[in-house]
C-alpha cells in the first residue's frame, strides 16, 4: 500500500502524462517529484492509524482479476437523496448525477472501476475513475464532515479556501501543511490543482460556465465529482450525499452506518412536532438592491421549516432553488409573519435597519423574532453551519424547533441559530 501511494503520487510516472497531455503541466509535474514524495511520506505516517479498521480488498487494488467475482459486496441503497443514483456491475459501479442544478440541464455520469480490474468499454460520455481514489480535493466546506466521517482526512490534499474553515480536523491539516489551498470558481488555481494531481475533485455546479469550477477541471482531464446536495428537497437527502462521496472510496458500509444514524436521529427529533397545535408563520432571506432572495418552496430549507412545526409562507411554491422576489410582494405576504430566518450576514437588528430601513416594517423585526444561522463564525466569517450543519440535520432541526416551539425542547441550546438583537 505504501509503495502504491508513492508510485501514484510520483509525477514522473508515465501514466500521469496521458491524463494531462499539456506539456507545461508535465514539466510542472516533474518539478513536483521531491515535493510529492515528501507529501507521500507524510501521508504514509498519518495514514497509518486510519487504515486499521477496514482492511479488505475494497480498500486496495486487485491483483488477480476474476471477471465472475463481485468486487463490491457492500452495496449502497439511496433512501432520501434524489440527485444521484448508483448501480453495481461486478467490478465497476455506474453513478449518475442527473440534474446538478436544474432539470433538463447538464448531467454527469461516472464509471467507478475497481483498481486492478479493466475499465469497461462503451462509456465514452462518462468519467472513468479508478476506485478507491487515493487523493481528493474538496471545493466546498459542506463536504468537510463527509470527508472526516468517512475517514478520508488522510487522502485530502486540498481545499478551496483556508480562511473560512471551522472544522478542527481540517484546521489541523492546514496547520501541519498537509493540504493545499486551490481556490474555486473564478479564482480556481487550475495549474496548482493540476500539479497536485488529485484522483478526484469534489465540487458543485450552478450552471454558470463562467463561474463553475468543474468545466476547466474536466477539460484538463481532472476527474470531478459534481455534488448537488444543495438541490435536495429534504435535509436528509442533503446529508445522504455522504454516500455519493463514499462511492469513490469504496466506503459504502461506513457511509450507510453514518447516514442511518443521522436519519434515525432526525426522525426522532421530527416526531416531536407531529402534534403541534399551532404552526407559526415564517419567511427567510433578505433583499439585495430591492430583490428578495427567498428559499424555494421545495427546498431543503422549506422541509426543515415544515419538520420544525412552522408554516413557511412560500411552501406552496415548487422551486428547489431560491426565489428572486420583489420586496413589495414579500412585505405583502410576510408583514405579519411570526418569525424571520436566515438574514445573510446580519449580526444585529441594527445592521438590518441600516441596510434598508424598510425591514423594520415586518412584525418579526419589531418583535425581535429574527434568527440568523451565523452563531458560529470564525474570524474570517466562515460559517460552521455550512460545515457541521450538513451532517447534523437533526441538530439544525432541533435549533428550529427550539425557536418555534421552545416548550418541546427545554434543554436544547441553540447551536447555529441566534436571535438578532
Amino acid at each position: 500500500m505504501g509503495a502504491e501511494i508513492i508510485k501514484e503520487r510520483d509525477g514522473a510516472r508515465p501514466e500521469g502524462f496521458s491524463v494531462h497531455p499539456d506539456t507545461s503541466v508535465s514539466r510542472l509535474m516533474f518539478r513536483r517529484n521531491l515535493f510529492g514524495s515528501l507529501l507521500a511520506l507524510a501521508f504514509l505516517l498519518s495514514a497509518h492509524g486510519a487504515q486499521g479498521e477496514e482492511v479488505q480488498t475494497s480498500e486496495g487494488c486487485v491483483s488477480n482479476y476474476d471477471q465472475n467475482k463481485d468486487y463490491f459486496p457492500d452495496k449502497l441503497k439511496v433512501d432520501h437523496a434524489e440527485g444521484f443514483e448508483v448501480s453495481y456491475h461486478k467490478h465497476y459501479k455506474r453513478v449518475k448525477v442527473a440534474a446538478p442544478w436544474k432539470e433538463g440541464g447538464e448531467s454527469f455520469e461516472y464509471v467507478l472501476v475497481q483498481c486492478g480490474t479493466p475499465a469497461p468499454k462503451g462509456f465514452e460520455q462518462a468519467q472513468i475513475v479508478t476506485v478507491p481514489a487515493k487523493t481528493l480535493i474538496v471545493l466546498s466546506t459542506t463536504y468537510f464532515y463527509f470527508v472526516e466521517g468517512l475517514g478520508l482526512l488522510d487522502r485530502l490534499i486540498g481545499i478551496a479556501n483556508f480562511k473560512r474553515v471551522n472544522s478542527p480536523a481540517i484546521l489541523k491539516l492546514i496547520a501541519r501543511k498537509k493540504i493545499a489551498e486551490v481556490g474555486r470558481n473564478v479564482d480556481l488555481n487550475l495549474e496548482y490543482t493540476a500539479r497536485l494531481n488529485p484522483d478526484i475533485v469534489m465540487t458543485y455546479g450552478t450552471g454558470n460556465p463562467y463561474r463553475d469550477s468543474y468545466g476547466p477541471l474536466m477539460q484538463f482531464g481532472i476527474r470531478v465529482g459534481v455534488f448537488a446536495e444543495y438541490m435536495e428537497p429534504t435535509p436528509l437527502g442533503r446529508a445522504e450525499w455522504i454516500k455519493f462521496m463514499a462511492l469513490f472510496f469504496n466506503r459504502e458500509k461506513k457511509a450507510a452506518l453514518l447516514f442511518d444514524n443521522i436519519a434515525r436521529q432526525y426522525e426522532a427529533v421530527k416526531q416531536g412536532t407531529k402534534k403541534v397545535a399551532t404552526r407559526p408563520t415564517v419567511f427567510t432571506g433578505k433583499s439585495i438592491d430591492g430583490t428578495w432572495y427567498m428559499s424555494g418552496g421545495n427546498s431543503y430549507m422549506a422541509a426543515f421549516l415544515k419538520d420544525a412545526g412552522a408554516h413557511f409562507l412560500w411552501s406552496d411554491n415548487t422551486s428547489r432553488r431560491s426565489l428572486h422576489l420583489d420586496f413589495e410582494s414579500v412585505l405583502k405576504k410576510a408583514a405579519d409573519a411570526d418569525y424571520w430566518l436566515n438574514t445573510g450576514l446580519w449580526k444585529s437588528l441594527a445592521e438590518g435597519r441600516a441596510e434598508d430601513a424598510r425591514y423594520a416594517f415586518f412584525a418579526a423585526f419589531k418583535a425581535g423574532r429574527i434568527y440568523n444561522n451565523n452563531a458560529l463564525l470564525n474570524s474570517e466569517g466562515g460559517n460552521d453551519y455550512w460545515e457541521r450543519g450538513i451532517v447534523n440535520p437533526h441538530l439544525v432541526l432541533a435549533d428550529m424547533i427550539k425557536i418555534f416551539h421552545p416548550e418541546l425542547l427545554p434543554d436544547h441550546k441553540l447551536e447555529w441559530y441566534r436571535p438578532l438583537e
Partner: protein
Amino acid sequence: MAKPFNIAHCFISGRNRPSRAVLWGMLSFMLIFLFLLALSVGSVSIPLETTLDILMHKGEDLVLHRIIWDLRFPKIFTALLAGAALSVSGLQMQTLFRNALAGPFVLGINAGAGLGVALVVLGTGAGITLMGNAGLIAQLSLFLASILGAASVLIVVLSLSQRVQNNVTLLIVGLIFGMMVNSLVSVLIYFSEPEEIQSYLIWTFGSFRGVTWDKLAVLAPAILSGLMIALTTVKPLNALLLGETYARSMGLSLKSARRLIIMSTAILAGSVTAFCGPIGFLGIAVPHLCRGLFRTSDHRVLFPAVLLIGAALALISEIAAQLPGTQQTLPLNAITALLGGPVILWVILKRRIAVNA
C-alpha cells in the same frame, strides 16, 4: 455633430407631424400617466380605488400603505431622477465629443464610479453589502467613493484633453482608461469573499428598488445640483455644435465650458451609479430619440426633452423589470438594453447609410 437624426418618421408620418407644443403636451401627459401606472402596478396588485385612498391617507391597510409610500414612491422618484440624469449627461457627452455613440459611460466615468464602489464594497473585507451596512455613513462613503472615482477618471481624461485637442482621440483615451480601471475592479473581485462578490454582481445588474427615502435624501439633491450645473452649459453646448473654432471665435471659454460639462456629468453619472448600479443604454439612446422627435439640435429644446424622455424611459424600464402581476423580477439592465439597444443600432446603421451616400 452629424446631421440631426430623424426618428420621428418611424412612428409619425411626415405630413401630419405634430407641432412642438403638441409634443410637449403629449410628453407631459405620458409622464404623468407613467407615474400613475407605476404607482398602481407592481408585484402586489392594489386596486386603483385603494391606491387613491392610500394617496389621500385614507387607507386602513398599513401594509398596502407602506407598499405605496415606502416602496413604490422612492422607486419611482429614483427612476425619474436617474433616467433624467443619465440622459442629460449623455446629451452633454455626445455634443462635447461630437460622437453619436458617446454617453456618460464611455469616458470611463462609469468605470471610475464602479471602482470607487468596488473599493468600498469589496475592499472593506467586512462583507458590507452594497446598499449600506452601517447606515448613513456607509451610504455617504459609497456615494462619495463613486463620485470621487468618476471625477478622478474625468480629471485624468480632462488633463489629457488639454494636450489632445482631438475629441475622437479623447474618446478613445476615455475608453481605454475605463478598461484599465475595470481591470482594477476585476483584481478586487478576484480577492474577495463570495458574499461580497455576490453583492457586487447584483449591483452591476442595476436597480432602482434598493433606494429608500433616506438614500433618496442624498441622491436627489446630488442629481438636482448636477442638473442645475448642466443647465448652465446649454448655451456653450449650442456653440460647440458649430465647432470648437467657431465657439472660440464667439468668445466662449472652451476650457471653463468643458470643465462645467464634465463636472456635471461626473456628479450625475457618479451619483446614479453609486445608488443604482451602472445602468446602460439610456444615456446614449435618449438624446437620439429626442433629436428625432423634436427635429432639432438646439440644446435649449433638447435639454428639457431629454430630461422628460429619459425619466419616462427609465420608468417604463422599471415597470417592465418587475413583471407586474408576478412576484418575480428581472435585472433592470436587461430591460434598458432591450429598449435602448435598437435605438443605438438604428443610429449606427443610419450613419453608415449617410456616410455611404
